[in-house]
């Protein structure tokens, strides 16, 4: 009889532990973190894939700022992705004066901004609180261009040279995933993630 009593206790204890773990995991926002991967076609580097805003969820801004440099009359890198609320530092490593401005954010000209002029070795920063596409230009050297894709969530990736991407540590769930590439139409697709998911994009002009 005592043996049956011990077994019952162990079973109850195990159940309690399982329920507690489930509760903990549920409290953490998802049962598990998965990976969304795929390819952006035409297969090119510097495409950005990101998860759209998630209802009811906000995310803290990254503590470390992003960097864009101006060197040899070019922006480096040409494309970066940064979550909303990020700070981007703009450097000038050229011995000529440069300027950085953007005529709009996501086409909204009211959000245009000009950072002015600064010489070699100095930098200026800006905090991007509005998600969207930010085209960077220099009003002295019109051929210079770069892009900041301010993403609404911290789940994003920039494609490699073959157009492949991986967005890791995404909780399981249903999302809308968007792909962007310079000069192409933005494309959004629904994705349901359960451990892993693959989504490919074929962008058009």
């Amino acid at each position: 009889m005592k043996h049956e009593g011990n077994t019952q206790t162990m079973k109850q204890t195990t159940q309690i532990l399982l329920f507690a773990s489930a509760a903990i995991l549920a409290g953490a926002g998802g049962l598990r973190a998965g990976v969304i991967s795929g390819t952006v076609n035409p297969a090119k580097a510097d495409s950005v894939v990101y998860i759209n805003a998630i209802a009811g969820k906000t995310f803290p801004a990254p503590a470390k700022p992003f960097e864009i440099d101006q060197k040899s009359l070019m922006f480096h890198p040409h494309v970066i992705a940064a979550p909303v609320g990020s700070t981007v530092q703009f450097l000038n490593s050229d011995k000529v004066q440069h300027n950085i401005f953007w005529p709009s954010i996501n086409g909204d000209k009211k959000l245009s901004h000009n950072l002015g002029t600064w010489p070699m070795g100095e930098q200026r920063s800006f905090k991007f609180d509005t998600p969207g596409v930010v085209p960077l230009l220099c009003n002295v050297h019109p051929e210079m261009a770069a892009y900041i894709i301010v993403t609404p969530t911290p789940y994003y990736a920039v494609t490699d040279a073959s157009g492949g991407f991986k967005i890791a540590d995404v909780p399981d769930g249903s999302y809308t995933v968007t792909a962007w590439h310079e000069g192409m139409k933005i494309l959004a697709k629904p994705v349901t993630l359960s451990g892993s998911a693959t989504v490919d994009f074929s962008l058009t002009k």
Partner: protein
Amino acid sequence: MQRKHHRILKTLLPGVIVGAGILLLASSHKGYAIPPFARKYQTSCQTCHLDFPKLNDFGKAFKDAGFKFPADDETYIKEPPVLLGAPANKDSFPNSVWPGEVPGLPPVGLRYNQFFQYTGSNRNQFDALATPGAAPGLVPATDFQAGLFSIFTAGNFGSGIAWWVDDDISVSGDNSAGALGDAYLKFVDIGRFIKLPKDSLSLRAGQFELDLPVTQARSINLSPYDIFQEANVGAAIPGAMQQNVGNQYTFADAARGIELSGGHSYGGYHYSVAVFDQNTTGISQSSNSFPYVPSATGSAGGGVGFSSDSSMKNVYARASYRFNLERDPKSRRAIQAAGATGPHDHTYLNFGTFYMYGDSLQRFTGATVGGITEVLSNREPYYRAGGDFSFNYRTFNVYGLYMYARDSDNLPMDATGAPIPLPLSGSPTPAGFVRGLPATFSGGFVQADYLVHPWLMAIARWDQVNSSADRINGLAFATNTSYFAPYSSSRDRFTPGVQFFIRANIKASFEYQIRPRQFVTVGSLANGNPVALNPFRVNTAVFALEFVY
């Protein structure tokens, strides 16, 4: 030796052209303007040009540095040069040729322009000049015309050696030969070899436009500056008011010689001193050959010919100082000023002065003494002197110059000391010369350019030439001859214009020339002196399309 300049052609009504231009602007485009430097650095024309070919301050610095970036040039080159010898060969010199480099791709640019002109109805006033009974020449009211197709190449061979060559391959659309424009080598900052301050001494050799206060060869205007086109021929009325000058030289002519220069054109001092061939008779090099002494490019048969018509060389000197007016000294000394919305040209005030001296040579057959024919050499010193200014605020630039010209005038006299009427007829032969009234003219221009938008330039210009000799000659020759006859000694022209960029390398330009009054009818006053009658203006509207690549 007349330098090439744009031909004026005919145009549509301005409103139609402006409308077409706006339509062209509206189309979307992604591309790069790529004449030689733009290709080398993969950068747009606007890096150096406000309204090509007009340079911004960075373009001036680029040119001063020998067509390269003023600092760290190699970091901006996207098209690596071809090395003519590894740099280590410097250590083995004189047992090796000093190493140099050439651009990776031929740095060649091409430029083409075409015109359309509308000439006012007063063009028919010239019908009065036709010989009685003959049909007068026709000046069409409207005319499309091909302009110049030019090739240009420029760059830097490394070690501070720069070059520039431009040539009009085709003129007027009929493949007729154009003219070599500038063609020179420039040794930048040679003062460094003798420990002079940086950029205080450079040497240019070849054929080039003089270091004029305002360039005509690379002007944005469709029509030339009148004062640069003016020659000092003096009064030429047979029997009266005659001057023995006939100097064909104009500032628009190319100079062949050498030039020392220093300083910067984007701030501070700038100077130049040029020594160049004198040619006052206007003889072309190909015609100026001598059968017994070859020129540098030919055999004893004469070769290509001599550029000079005398041994004397002209001297031209210019000095200027530009005050950049920014409060921040760091910004004042920089190539461009740092603005709140980006770098831009300095706010500046520039003052300069220039002086040119020559000594014209005329040779006459004199009397025959003891079987030997005397050859008389008549030297007539001449000079051109003037001052200039330029003020710039952001993209608004107003500038101008004033010039005074003076040629000595020596009249031939016979053996009795009496002046011989010109032109000489062979008898009597001159025995000497007597000082006459110098031939003079003066004038200048003021121009204002305003870059309203990066793609739109508004221009207003006023030219004036004061020449009594031109008016006197007009009174003498206007009737029944096709001779330009200004109504007044002072010729004023007002030329408003607008230019807009269809693309960074494609430009549409328009200007309306309100030309000076002139006449073709001459009457007589009660005292018998001639008087000009029925003055009129032949105003023209000119539209141009041009592209470079």
